[in-house]
């Protein structure tokens, strides 16, 4: 017998269920216990950089919008720094949390984030990653939260050398990670869970 590896096992995930908003955005469901829903505001004062809005919809395998999803984003500030205890490279913009949570519109399911365009963040080997926003999607029917990334279609040069985007074998799927800027300064990032145009999801 060899010695035992005494690691614990990660707690198994379970679906967030249809009533995830009771716990994560209670004010949105009319339960007013906390002052405001966490993650509703990413800007707590004047922020540095280009202010943008991200909008999108999550679709199921039949093309039907999910109206009960909870979408979270996590990103760097305009200088590429995270507002996190683990950020060791410098001080992030104190007026920008970097984290947002959207329950989506009650009727259409469209999510919205008022944020800033993130700066570039390095990969572990020192190469620069293209500006990106990390997405995490949970909902009824999703057993474990889905991670993906939104990149910016107007950052073609940076995207072309991004260590993640260039790693994707099926390059014809890369556009599923690219958000396009509308004329009004809104980036649109739709997420397709399954089938034609399926978004690339990450095991990170």
């Amino acid at each position, binding site marked *: 017998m060899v010695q035992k590896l005494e690691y614990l096992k990660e707690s198994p995930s379970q679906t967030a269920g*249809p009533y995830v908003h009771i716990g*994560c955005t209670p004010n949105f469901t009319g339960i007013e216990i906390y002052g405001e829903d966490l993650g509703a505001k990413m800007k707590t004062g004047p922020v540095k950089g280009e202010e943008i809005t991200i909008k999108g919809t999550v679709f*199921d395998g039949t093309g*039907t919008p999910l109206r009960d999803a909870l979408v979270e984003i996590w990103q*760097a500030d305009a200088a590429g720094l995270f507002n996190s205890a*683990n950020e060791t490279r410098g001080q992030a913009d104190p007026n920008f949390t970097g984290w947002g949570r959207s329950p989506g519109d009650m009727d259409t399911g469209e999510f919205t984030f008022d944020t800033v365009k993130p700066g570039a*963040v*390095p990969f572990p080997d020192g190469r620069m990653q293209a500006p990106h926003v*990390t997405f995490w999607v949970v909902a009824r029917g999703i057993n474990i939260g889905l991670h993906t990334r939104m990149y910016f279609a107007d950052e073609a040069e940076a995207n072309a050398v991004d260590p993640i985007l260039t790693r994707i074998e099926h390059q014809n799927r890369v556009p599923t990670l690219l958000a396009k800027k509308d004329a009004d300064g809104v980036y649109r990032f739709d997420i397709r*869970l399954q089938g034609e145009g399926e978004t690339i999801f990450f095991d990170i």
Partner: protein
Amino acid sequence: MTIIKNTGGFVPRDRSWQPAALTPQYKTSVKRSPQAALLSFPTTLSEETNPVFGHNMLGELDNNLIHNYAAAGESAIGPRIIVHGRVLDEMGRPVPGALLEFWQANAGGRYRHKKESYLAPLDPNFGGCGRTITGEDGSYEFRTIQPGPYPWPNGMNDWRPAHIHFSVFGHGFAQRLITQMYFEGDPHIWLCPIVGTIDDKTAVESLIAPLDMHRTVPMDSRAYKFDIVLRGRRQTFFENRVEGM
């Protein structure tokens, strides 16, 4: 080339221990599960950092579901319980400062949500959500009433076991987790298609909270203990070696 100071990446998830995306007995998963394989890559700063939530964001009753929605002098109806435990990582290290959010149905299995239509009544003194942040040793606790099982439209006679939903933030976005806690001895656990999305019996058992008489307060509240384990972080410097080493 810039060499990045790195406190170590996260250990990859054991996807055979975690539920698969496509689990047809849980019907909603059929059209909400990706068909292509997930793309793997080592964690980067985007996954190794996480928002920080300070204890000062918490209200006095945020961890007391018996009273946080109740009218003055009133309390929620149902079996009074304390839920407590620790948040640890896979290496067994405590995870301090972890934000936990929890939500649940009332004692009759009814959620306070406009899309919910179960005929069991709402409790006017019960909202069903709470939150807390772990202490230096990773410990947490909250007071609530034990939720009831409830029926759901999946199979023709499917009932969820009594459960409390948990949302957990660790120290990296890669650790982000939502799960459910079940109660020791509930026969619905082993009938439930959502519990059944997890293949491994030991993994299911890790979500079942035992009755904890040591923490039960006589003549007041019973207690259940529920530990949560988040992904571990490596402590390695190999990936930070300067070129040529």
